[in-house]
């Protein structure tokens, strides 16, 4: 990377918002966006369950921060910070990984094509319920969204990006709309 250029930082939320705690990644990113304004070299991407289709975004990033639900057999709602080479180990496909492509494979594909992020962090959360199709986040996971967002802000600062808490009532572009934003989705499913 050019020493005089700001690193391109990608914050990526992945998972399915229609599937209870599987939605953690996207909801954590949505929470971050509601709480913080970051410098222009930081971009936010709701990756959903796009798998391999995310490879170009990963390739373009110098630093990558991922939010995702990780099944690590911990207490539901436990946050886990994973860094660097440890990340692919946490993102492999197993029985729980019903997705065609584990995020590990997206990382490998980025590696093969050229463009593996220089810095990589995963903020994971242990889900409680993955069976509840159409359900909202469970309480233990929802309770961690703020902390996950705060943790991301600290990491961004460490990466040299500026990040500030939004003022009360500050207008901002929401990450999700059309009734699938957290407030509307969860109010109606609770």
């Amino acid at each position: 990377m050019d020493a005089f250029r700001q690193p391109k930082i990608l914050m990526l939320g992945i998972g399915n918002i229609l599937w209870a705690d599987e939605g953690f990644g996207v909801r954590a990113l949505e929470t971050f966006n509601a709480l913080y304004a970051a410098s222009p070299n930081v971009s936010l991407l709701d990756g959903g369950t796009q798998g391999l289709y995310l490879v170009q975004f990963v390739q373009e990033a110098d630093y990558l921060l991922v939010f995702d639900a990780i099944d690590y057999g911990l207490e539901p709602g436990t946050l886990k910070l994973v860094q660097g080479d440890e990340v692919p180990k946490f993102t492999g496909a197993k029985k729980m990984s019903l997705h065609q492509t584990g995020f590990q494979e997206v990382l490998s594909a980025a590696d093969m094509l050229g463009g593996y992020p220089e810095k990589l962090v995963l903020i994971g959360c242990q889900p409680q319920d993955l069976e509840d199709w159409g359900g909202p986040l469970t309480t233990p996971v929802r309770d961690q969204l703020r902390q996950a967002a705060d943790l991301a802000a600290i990491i961004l600062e460490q990466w040299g990006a500026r990040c500030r808490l939004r003022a009360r009532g500050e207008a901002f572009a929401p990450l999700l709309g059309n009734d699938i934003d957290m407030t509307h989705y969860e109010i109606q499913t609770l």
Partner: protein
Amino acid sequence: MGVQTPNGFNLDTSGKRIVVDPVTRIEGHMRVEVNVDSDNVIRNAVSTGTMWRGIEVILRGRDPRDAWAFTERICGVCTGTHALTSVRAVEDALQIRIPENANSIRNLMQLALQVHDHIVHFYHLHALDWVDVVSALSADPKATSALAQSISPWPLSSPGYFRDLQGRLKRFVDSGQLGPFKNGYWGSKAYRLPPEANLMAVAHYLEALDFQKEIVKIHTIFGGKNPHPNWLVGGVPCPINVDGVGGVGAINMERLNYITEIIDRSIEFNDQVYLPDVAAIGSFYKDWLYGGGLSGKSVLAYGDVPENANDYSPANLLLPRGAIINGNLNEIHPVDHRDPNEIQEFVTHSWYKYPDETKGLHPWDGVTDPHYELGPNTKGTRTNIESLDEGGKYSWIKAPRWKGHAMEVGPLARWIVGYAQGKPEFKEPVDKLLKDLGLPTAALFSTLGRTAARALESQWAAYKMRHFQNKLIANIKAGDSSTANVDKWEPKTWPSEVKGVGFTEAPRGALAHWIKIKDTKIENYQAVVPTTWNGSPRDPQGNIGAFEASLMDTPMADPNQPVEILRTLHSFDPCLACSTHVMSEDGQEMAKVTVR
């Protein structure tokens, strides 16, 4: 010995049972069990979707104008096509007419999705059923170059190019991280390509991965963002402002020219890479013509890509519409989504409850009431099934039937209908490909035929993109910049009770959403997705579904390495539309194959 199904298959469960769970490289979670005879030929097949999807339940009570945003999240790969189907269902219910530009733009988005999805499916989910990645390491780069140049003018074909690529692949494999290539049975006797063809295919695997990002820019431009582009009931959300410069969101000439460029490159990639690859790979497998299943018997296509806006009649649809039953290509039956006796879903073998399960329900009156119970001959426990009892309930997928018939849907179904209608744009490329391979028409009804039809369709779709792009530009130049009709946007303009149906041809096959709206909210919403058709379990009459039928009578080289099963199932591009993916500490697990 065995049981004859009404749709013509002889099921024999006496041989040993093989369980593949999960079937890898698909969207969603799927399990397959087969019985093989003493020669390892498949004599019974059971396919099950092991995840419940309840979009119907989620949508009840919501604003119909937002339904597309939810349905876009059902699935990780065909997001846009669900959104399009959803807005069409709402427009049908509320009798909303869309502007001509909106129709062209929607077609461009849908066709771009077809091309994108077909290319990604072939190279990244399916090619590895035919291509042995590890064998590519022993290829001679010079011979690979000669092979590549003999089949296509594609410029990336020098010996040096393949040598570099082989080096990259070798470093990758040596580092122990097979990554995207990890779920393969490398070295299996079921692989037939010479090392050079394998290396060429691996090169194109990477090129396709790099190219796919260009195609989706069409969604970014028209849909405002990607992933998860925006859609709009009544049209498309992007305004047109041809004189605008760099305006955010608006479509101007600069953006349109950029799209033209992407379309040209898509045509080139299909013509010079995808099609030649399929023909080359096909030439090594042309005596492996298993997997036809229902394709030679019963196929269904809804049709899609309306030439003119608001006319969904077969004559106006560029992708063909119709049903063929019992292998009679001389008779193409009309299909009516609204007729309660045509499309019905059964649950006798599905984990749902109906008041009377001997009868099917039309989707407008559909019921989604989960009910998990296992048949008496199930082995194992409720949470850890060793083998399923297909005599009882055994899948989360319902069993849709058209006038009682199990049907195959997808690119092959569409191309068979188009072929049977005698339309030159479908018939001629099929005949040419078959002639080049020295194969009879009957060879089309196979796994390879399914794979080839998808490639032909990708090529077809890329040229149709050019057609709608030209049409859009001409219409704009003629002074029409309208992209949305908002006359009925306000719910107070709606009748108190209406129902509608929207349909598309998703990359994997016929897709329709049925909606009932009451007092401005969704009262019932049912989606019958392509994989519900193809992956359906048995029905009350005992007809087996398309996946199950396609596996019948296929010989396996080694039951412990189910390459043949994966190859045939992948040829449908299965999508169980549930897409959850939690990361786990001990990744790396390959599909478990159990032989009993």
